[in-house]
């Protein structure tokens, strides 16, 4: 697409990759997203700790954006260290919640689950483990039905 116009001193919206590139070449200063702020992130972290469900995150790429901006432009982000800690704390809470949900799902032998507001990063970290575990559980459940055809060789 088209970008610009680039006028000195005036903020302009660009794709992240370009922003990082220009920053690395010391040609600009980055403005963090409105949610990358200690107050806002504290609210999110607290809500995450309070609720059983997953908080809708301000960006589906909150982890990726935090990492990129803190790596390349921490000088443009006020209280960067606190931001880093807050995001990590929120991630940890969400992952623990995900494991809790998974355990509850397995124990109740549910057939379907719906988890709203997860980001791809979270899904990818846990996804392979979960699908394989559920696969095994499914096979063990078919054992409960009598009949030779259900006892397959492949484990």
């Amino acid at each position, binding site marked *: 697409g088209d970008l610009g116009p680039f006028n000195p001193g005036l903020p302009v919206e660009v794709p992240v990759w370009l922003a990082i590139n220009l920053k690395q070449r010391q040609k600009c200063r980055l403005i963090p997203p409105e949610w990358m702020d200690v107050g806002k992130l504290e609210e999110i972290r607290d809500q995450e700790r309070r609720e059983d469900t997953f908080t809708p995150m301000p960006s589906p790429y909150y982890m990726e954006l935090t990492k990129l901006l803190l790596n390349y432009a921490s000088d443009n982000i006020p209280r960067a260290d606190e931001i880093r800690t807050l995001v990590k704390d929120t991630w940890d809470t969400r992952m623990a919640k995900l494991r809790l949900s*998974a*355990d509850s799902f397995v124990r109740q032998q549910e057939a379907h689950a719906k988890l709203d507001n997860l980001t791809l990063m979270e899904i990818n970290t846990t996804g392979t483990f979960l699908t394989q*575990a559920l696969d*095994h559980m499914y096979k*063990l459940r078919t054992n409960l039905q009598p009949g*030779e055809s259900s*006892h397959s060789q492949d*484990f």
Partner: protein
Amino acid sequence: SFLQGSKLEIPLWLAKGLHDSKRRIISVELPKIYKEAWRTVFSADANVVDLHKMGPYYYGFGSQLLNFENPENPEIAQTILQTFIARFRRIMDSSQNAYNEDTSALVARLDELERALFQVGQKGLNDFQCWEKGQASQITASSLVQNYGKRKLAEVDG
């Protein structure tokens, strides 16, 4: 040749081949871990059992055992399933949790199916940590290319 009524240890595949519900050539005795006494231990707390020592293919072998008509099959099948469900949490937590200390004690007690699952969980975590450190964007030579170089040298010297 065998005397009728004699008791032998044979591999599972042979037992399956000889087994025929109509002709009753053989009957299969359950390994003790699938019998009632042990099933009670499992239902009390499946997490304490060393499934590697008792197995190491507790789930796979147990599932195969169900091929031989045994009146206890429904209980065996249920115990195997419930055991998996009970142990699932610890395997998931220790394979996926970055702050865990030494997991080797837990892994030592896992059967082969659980160990494979543990590895998968570890990989998910390792991939995430690798990304976090920024290693995911480093280009490294594929191992195929690295080994090709080594092999060529060996040919020249040998």
